[in-house]
């Protein structure tokens, strides 16, 4: 790999780390709003380290949900990372202890950067550099957000209450844009999920309505045969 390509990869990794850091600050604030202390927020970012799951965890607790519902929501969103891992195996060829370490950084951004790289060496560099950059910024900014939010009072609290759903919407938004694969279906599932959650809110224990909203995935319908060819189709 040439040195300009390496620099470009590292520059992208740092830029992405800074951008994701803003979400980290929003997460820290959301964790505080949900009643978690600074240590709990910091532990989630250091140990769970997967944004959507962390937001779901504090979102469910913030809505008054049980610990079990919070864990369930986080794990449902974490299934994405299993699929990412499978796609990264040919690139990373993880073995032994390296696999134990690399697994922690398997998230949306590192996968996207690694798979977009033009060759394997750059792909591995992109994975490691993006992982390091985001891990650093995500954890640092979680602390900033949690400590900042803990210092707020009165009107600033009301502002924070309005910021939390907006942060969730910003997390969801890219999936609903026209450029996203099957955006129309994503929108249908999203509307379905919101309707199910609101309809169940008066009748189920808090937090359960969020987990129950996964039934809206049924609105996506059957897998499209053309979209992901099976091994047999590929050989034919």
């Amino acid at each position, binding site marked *: 790999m040439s040195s300009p390509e390496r620099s470009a990869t590292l520059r992208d990794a740092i830029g992405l780390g800074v951008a994701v850091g803003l979400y980290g600050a929003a997460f820290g604030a959301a964790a505080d709003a949900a009643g978690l202390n600074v240590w709990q927020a910091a532990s989630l970012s250091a140990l769970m380290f997967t944004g959507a799951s962390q937001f779901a965890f504090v979102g469910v607790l913030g809505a008054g949900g049980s610990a079990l519902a919070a864990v369930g929501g986080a794990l449902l969103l974490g299934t994405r990372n299993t699929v990412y891992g499978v796609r990264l195996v040919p690139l990373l060829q993880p073995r032994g202890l390296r696999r134990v370490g690399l697994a922690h950084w398997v998230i949306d951004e590192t996968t996207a950067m690694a798979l977009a790289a033009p060759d394997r060496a750059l792909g591995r560099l992109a994975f490691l550099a993006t992982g390091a950059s985001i891990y650093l910024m995500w954890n640092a900014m979680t602390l900033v957000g949690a400590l900042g939010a803990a210092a707020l009072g009165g009107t600033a609290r009301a502002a924070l209450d309005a910021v939390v759903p907006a942060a969730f919407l910003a997390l969801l938004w890219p999936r609903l844009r026209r450029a996203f694969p099957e955006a129309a279906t994503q929108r249908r599932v999203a509307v379905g999920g919101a309707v199910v959650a609101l309809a169940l809110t008066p009748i189920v224990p808090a937090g359960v309505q969020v987990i129950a*909203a996964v039934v809206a995935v049924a609105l996506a319908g059957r897998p499209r045969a053309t979209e992901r060819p099976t091994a047999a189709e590929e050989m034919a």
Partner: protein
Amino acid sequence: MSGTVVWVAVLAAAVGSYLLKFAGLSVPAAWVEQPWVARVVDFVPAALLAALVAVQAATSGRHLVVDGRLVGLAVAAVALAFRAPFIVVLLLAGAAGALVHVLV
């Protein structure tokens, strides 16, 4: 909810999330790359994140409520539609929520 329960949940969710990541690097690809599995995994985030948006913005306990949060959400949606940066979206939503708090 006691602090201990929250801590247990934090650690359980962290360990579970890690194992989901580790599984991807460890299990045969054929187990995960089933069309139905891929289909569900592709759409779980949309359903769950939308449910969280709705619950965070429009409920309080078991009640549906309309307050500054919903106004903030509407402002955020407009900002996102105009491709505003994340930080701008949050600032506008927060300002809207604070304004409603002051006025109502």
